[in-house]
């Protein structure tokens, strides 16, 4: 209304006609949103949370769609390709079937045949017939410190066949005369040779490199199957193992924390809200559960659930984790609820006649969401590692079922020589943790009641 001057006017009735509704004064600039709708909107606006959502989707695809696309059996072992790094040379030459060999004698130290991964055959002049020889092998030059490398065998014969873990690389072989006590002498010879990777016809057929009818000549070149992420200590495909391992690790890493945090939240908020004697009793029970020795009860659950040999053992593990690990969350939530219970808005809510359920669900839990989500984010890796630790001491998933944690366990031993066996599973665990962390962050921002007005 303008600042019109007051004048004496007479009003007629038609002057009071209702104003035409040409403008919707009651309209709200945004549609009314429930707590969850609002949270979803804000989650979508959070770039990091979105990335993490995509990561989670990616992990799920990797787990469930991966094995459909990459149809390699993760249990197939290939002793010819043990601990192969990704991108290693895969070429292989056809040789004849292995025949035992007894040496022919030679006037000098030499390879009796071209050294191959099937066998390396050495022979030499019998220069120390009474006490015999020790044969050494090393991939590095001998040098002044006389680092002969691996002692392969002691023999009285002037020939030796090496079949131990031969890899397609350069080796130095030393034949050392030993004395009566079996000690090394200064009388030794060294030769150098490059081992070629070979395969027998039967093996090539079983790998499908050669058809059953075909009879290719010796010396034909082939390529071994491709392992994009290399192979493990038994020559199994790492990618396939990671995909199958994801089922165990993500299952444990997702369900166990979800379930025990859920129990913890319900338990903790109940205790915190009711308070008094009930709270005391409930928290003492939580203390009791916390102090139970995890390992012992893990064994017990396995016995109780009657897990037979060869069964994966995931369910008893999940059960044990859920039953034994909830109290930490419960304590945390209870602590928060105790604090919030005294807040002014709760008293106000109560005064306004809010029901207990409403107070807990709408005010208390959303306000503890931040802490709860942090707990969940951390529970994910700790559940994955608990599984690894249990697998390690023989109470986790049964071999050959892989899991990321147990793959890490195996990989750590060859950390220096075959780093890919540790790095890939560790990387996948990291990605999972990262994804859940960022998602947790995003969810926290989205769900936290106090963040609602901060846009």
């Amino acid at each position, binding site marked *: 209304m303008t600042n019109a001057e007051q004048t004496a006017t007479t009003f007629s009735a038609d002057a009071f006609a209702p104003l035409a509704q040409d403008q919707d004064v009651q309209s709200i600039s945004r549609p009314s949103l429930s707590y969850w709708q609002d949270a979803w909107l804000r989650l979508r606006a959070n770039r990091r949370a979105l990335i993490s959502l995509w990561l989670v989707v990616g992990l799920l695809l990797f787990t469930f769609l991966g094995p459909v696309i990459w149809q390699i059996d993760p249990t197939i072992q290939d002793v010819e390709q043990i601990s192969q790094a990704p991108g290693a040379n895969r070429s292989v030459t056809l040789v004849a079937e292995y025949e035992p060999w007894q040496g022919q004698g030679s006037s000098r130290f030499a390879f009796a045949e071209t050294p191959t991964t099937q066998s390396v055959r050495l022979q030499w002049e019998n220069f120390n017939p009474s006490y015999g020889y020790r044969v050494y092998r090393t991939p590095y030059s001998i040098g002044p410190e006389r680092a002969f490398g691996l002692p392969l065998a002691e023999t009285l014969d002037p020939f030796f066949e090496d079949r131990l873990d031969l890899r397609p690389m350069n080796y130095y072989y030393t034949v050392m005369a030993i004395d009566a006590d079996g000690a090394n002498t200064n009388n030794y010879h060294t030769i150098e040779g490059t081992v070629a990777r070979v395969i027998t016809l039967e093996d090539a057929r079983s790998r499908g490199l050669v058809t059953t009818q075909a009879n290719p000549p010796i010396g034909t070149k082939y390529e071994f199957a491709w392992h994009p992420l290399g192979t493990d200590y038994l020559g199994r495909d790492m990618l396939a193992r990671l995909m199958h391992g994801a089922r165990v690790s993500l299952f444990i890493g997702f369900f166990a924390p979800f379930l025990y945090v859920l129990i913890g939240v319900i338990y903790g908020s109940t205790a915190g809200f009711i308070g008094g004697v009930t709270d005391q009793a409930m928290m003492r029970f939580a203390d009791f559960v916390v102090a139970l*020795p995890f390992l012992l*009860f893990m064994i017990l659950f396995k016995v109780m659930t009657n897990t037979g040999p060869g069964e994966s053992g995931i369910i008893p593990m999940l059960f044990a984790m859920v039953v034994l690990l909830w109290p930490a969350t419960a304590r945390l939530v209870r602590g928060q609820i105790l604090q919030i219970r005294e807040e002014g808005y709760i008293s106000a809510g109560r005064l306004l006649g809010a029901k207990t359920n409403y107070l807990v669900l709408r005010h208390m839990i959303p306000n503890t969401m931040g802490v709860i989500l942090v707990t969940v984010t951390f529970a994910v890796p700790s559940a994955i590692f608990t599984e690894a630790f249990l697998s390690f001491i023989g109470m986790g998933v049964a071999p050959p079922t892989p899991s990321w944690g147990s793959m890490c366990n195996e990989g750590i031993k060859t950390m220096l020589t075959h780093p890919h066996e540790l790095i890939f599973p560790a990387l996948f665990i990291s990605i999972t943790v990262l994804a859940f962390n960022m998602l947790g962050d995003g969810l926290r921002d989205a769900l936290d009641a106090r963040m609602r007005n901060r846009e």
Partner: protein
Amino acid sequence: MASYALKRLLQGLITVWFIATATFFGMHAVPGDPLTGDKALTEKIRENLEVKYGLNQPVITQYGIFLKNLAKGDLGISFTQENRRVNDIIAEHFPVSATLGVLAIFFAAIGGILWGALTALYRNRLPDTIIMLLVILGISVPSFVVAAVGQLSLVNLNDMAGTSVLPVGGWGTVWHMIVPSLVLGLSTMAYLTRLMRSSMLEIVSSDFVRTAKAKGIPAAQIFTRHQLRNAILPVITVLGPSIAAITTGGFVVEIIFAIPGLGRYFVQAVQQLDYTVIMGTTVFYGAFLVFMVILVDLIYGWIDPRVRLE
């Protein structure tokens, strides 16, 4: 306060009794017993051994004997560490685990609180991003990897320096403790950082901080008195169980760094079904944990006056 503490201690005693009972019967329900060995025993010898260790009696009688001895503070003699009393084992090895654990918790708590506060302060800026990435690394690498890498870097450090800068393993001096306790405390530190950050962020946007700012209270005082003090609360709640987890969970670190802690005796005892050591360590740790929880609750009440201790 004193009467409250006393009441809690009494309740704690009952909790410990429950723990002991559950563990005792749980342990006896597991197939096998401590007498099963690599070499088979003849019936006669087995009987003799069972009599010697009182295993020939019904479990409930054994339980009664155990409780009677427990009341006297006697935890019995170990089955695997023959001729050693469980009391001695705990007395000798717990201080080692505790020292390592206290140091680890100290590192974790101080690191966690400081880093957490820092990241909250610089939220979504560079320091926050860097620290949070480190935190994720800290929790996504399992402890056995951290321990192995830690030890390897010590070897390389000594190798490069040409002398023993820090010992690679063993126990004795402060220098032996630094790396193992850091390794042990790392994941807890990461957890606490994360927890501290999130609770800090909640506090920053809370009404009383805003009011304090509006009242013109000096920034330093707001930060310390209002923000830090309130944000530490959830950290303290988890600290109690963490202490117990760290002192018991040192198994991997103890093995790799050759530290004579109680952790490996416990794991070994479970694997060997060494009844007396299992019971001894469980009761001891149970009591320790319950005590820690009570302590934390008392501290909690002291820091946060809103939480009334009846």
